């Protein structure tokens, strides 16, 4: 019916160096759409990412996807940039803090999404460490957590509880995603876009803080025994 318009947004990957790496080594790009490369070996500064350091773009939104395993974020990014009603720019990162060299070219990030794979403990730990590198003003509705493999038998219940507690204590939305099927990826994209539009100020009469109050969860969840006595 309608022809597919070419994506207006673009995907950028920035690699954060861990503090241990001292010598310079260029990190090869994983896909042709990557435009920014990280060079040099300076120690990344600990300056946190700030939400209001730049002016917003017209009819556009910028989202940062942080995932230590770097698998789901690429597929999500490809779907996100296909949005046509407004321009979506996606930046990918393995962890925070982001390298200092890119700070000049980096636009204002409207939404930071931490993708956590419940079957890997490393994923959760990396997300917990990265969360500390965000400016506190992001936690007024501009951060959300996306969890994959929640229904997998290999994911222990305590890890999910820990993620829930983390999201509840930071007043962030917690989304679950099915990353194995294309339908699941499409749905995850739609949900992210719903939050992104609000965070970028594109929905009238709604702010990110307002939405975060509606989507905030509580930590305690003892569902195993709903006792009706």
């Amino acid at each position: 019916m309608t022809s597919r318009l070419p994506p207006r947004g673009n995907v950028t990957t920035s690699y954060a160096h861990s503090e241990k790496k001292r010598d310079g080594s260029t990190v090869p790009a994983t896909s042709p759409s990557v435009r920014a490369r990280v060079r040099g070996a300076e120690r990344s500064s600990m300056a946190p990412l700030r939400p209001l350091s730049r002016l917003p773009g017209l009819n556009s939104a910028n989202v940062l996807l942080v995932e230590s395993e770097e698998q789901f974020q690429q597929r999500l990014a490809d779907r996100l940039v296909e949005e046509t009603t407004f321009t979506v720019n996606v930046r990918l990162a393995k962890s925070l803090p982001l390298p200092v060299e890119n700070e000049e070219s980096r636009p204002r990030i409207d939404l930071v999404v931490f993708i956590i794979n419940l079957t890997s403990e490393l994923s959760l730990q990396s997300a917990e460490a990265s969360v500390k590198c965000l400016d506190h003003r992001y936690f007024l509705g501009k951060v959300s957590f996306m969890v994959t493999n929640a229904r997998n038998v290999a994911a222990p219940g305590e890890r999910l509880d820990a993620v829930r507690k983390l999201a509840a204590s930071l007043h962030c939305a917690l989304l679950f995603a099915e990353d194995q099927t294309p339908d699941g990826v499409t749905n995850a994209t739609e949900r992210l876009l719903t939050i992104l539009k609000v965070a970028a100020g594109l929905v009238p009469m709604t702010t990110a803080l307002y939405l975060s109050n509606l989507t905030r969860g509580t930590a305690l969840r003892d569902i195993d025994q709903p006792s009706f006595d």
Partner: protein
Amino acid sequence: MLTDFTQLEAGTPVNGNDEVERNMVLVEKLAYSKGLSPEAISIMLEFAMSLRMGTSLCARVLKCLIPATLVPQEAVVRAVVWLSVGKIPVSTQILFIKWVLTVFDMIDAKDQLRAVYGFIFNFVTEENLCPFICHLLYLLTRKESVVSCSMLILFPQGRQPFLLSLLSLYKVFCPEMVMLSIPSRIKSGFRNHNMPWKSALIAVQKGAGPHVAAGISPASTTIKTNPRKRVWGFSKEAQTEPSSCGKVVPLVQLHSFAQLLENMHRIELPAQMGSLLGSSLALQYLDCVQDESALLRLNFWLGYALHEEFLFCGDRGASQNSQEALPFLDRLLSTQHFLQEGFSCSEAFLYKFLNVWDGSLLRPQILGLLSNIPVVPSAQIRQLLFEPLMQLFFTSSLFFKCGLMECLNNMLLKWLTWHSVYALEDDLDISLNSHTSINMTLSGFKDSVMELVDFVGRLASLGLQLEGCHSLLLSFVLDFYETVCDMFMKYGLPLVVMPPPGVFYPALFATDPVSVDRLAYIMHRYKVNFTSAKSQEELTKAFHISRQMVREFNHYIIVMVNCLWNSKMFQLDMGLSLGEDLLLKSKVPQYWASFDLVHHPAFMSYAVDFHHRDMDLNSIKVRGHF
């Protein structure tokens, strides 16, 4: 090749024995491709469990015992006897019991196994085997078996879930023999044991053809009217069936309602309770008889199947998941629709599933199951239901919002229908089709309904705001309020709840005429309900209408009439007060008439249509801002 196995003597060395190795490889290949025939199973099982060639081959044989069609029960009974000889290592014993549990439905008859029930029961005392033996006993137990067993052995073992499940089944059969109290819901009774063989079983059965029942998806009994000779000769046939012993008739053999009525008092339920889900005959029987043990077993099996398929699934490909999952859920939905109520295990499953749901996986089925859950007490409804739904609602697309609205509307409808059927004055006896019965008073029920209506009102107001008063969402919201406005007249519930302003005003100022019309209809129904409730209040003095609600209703009616009829919009005390200077700044001429019947944007199409009939378009004097 198989005869070689029977002829092997005890003590033949395994290591370096090429012939045995070759035969083993052949057997394994056959097993994984087509499955083993009943005779082959018999021979291999005997060979393994008798430990003729030592313990190492035993485990290997057990792992490749994939049956093609059936498993002869004599082989299983003999193997159980070998179990007690005492030379098999514990891990292999456990493997054997797990195998029996996996192929349980394929064992051709169970009467010999039941004959050795007491013998199997003795294994309960062994700590390592206990969980699996309990599961096996659970599947085999009949009323007769319970009487013959000693309960005292089970007491000191503690309150593990598998023991409690078995005890609860015993309690259902013989309540006087079980003294301790069993909690009404037992956490995850029996765990899944069929992992090593499951994928191979499914592969073999797929190859064999669709008529063979798969391990986890229940066999559906077909309902056909049989030729006449079957009906006449039926009772004779039943008596010649060896497993029925002339007393009971297995449910799977009944094919028409007439037969069901004939044999009502001596029906035997199948071991695989899930097979009942597809057959309406079986469901009618269950519903009438209200057999607690059957319901318990059905609930247990269903909960276990739901958990395994959707909550604790492995890394299987998602397409395989949905191929099996979708028909299973559809069948469960149609069962619930047939019985007009939900199962308690599906309710428990849903609460857990909602917490890890992404909102789109199997959405129609999950929303369908959700609308079937029974009345939730108001103390728990927020945590169990509302919180996860809110998180999903505000982060999902418009279509999810609409779907959830419809689901909650159906839920309310079912609660109200249930109330109007079961209400006995003040005290409602809510007995769900499980062995628990929840007693809820009328006020408790009213509280739950209030909570639900308030929740939906909140979702609706905020959702409409977020979606810019989208007309599709508005239509679903008005559907809900059409149900709410008639709660008193249609369902006899003495409760009237007005829609919040976030729903009323978007509907009043909507740009499509259908919404305005439906809002008018809803307000009319509210008036009818209020007047009837008021007259009843004067008569009986038992029902008290909230004065706050009446005030809100009056306020809405005044706003609506002033706006649409009297051309008196934006006046003071009308709910929407805009300063006069602001209104003058907008340069809208005669702003007080901008939403009356003549000028309302929703009715523009009717105005144009009217002019088309009598005059041509040029003679329309367009007033104001159109």
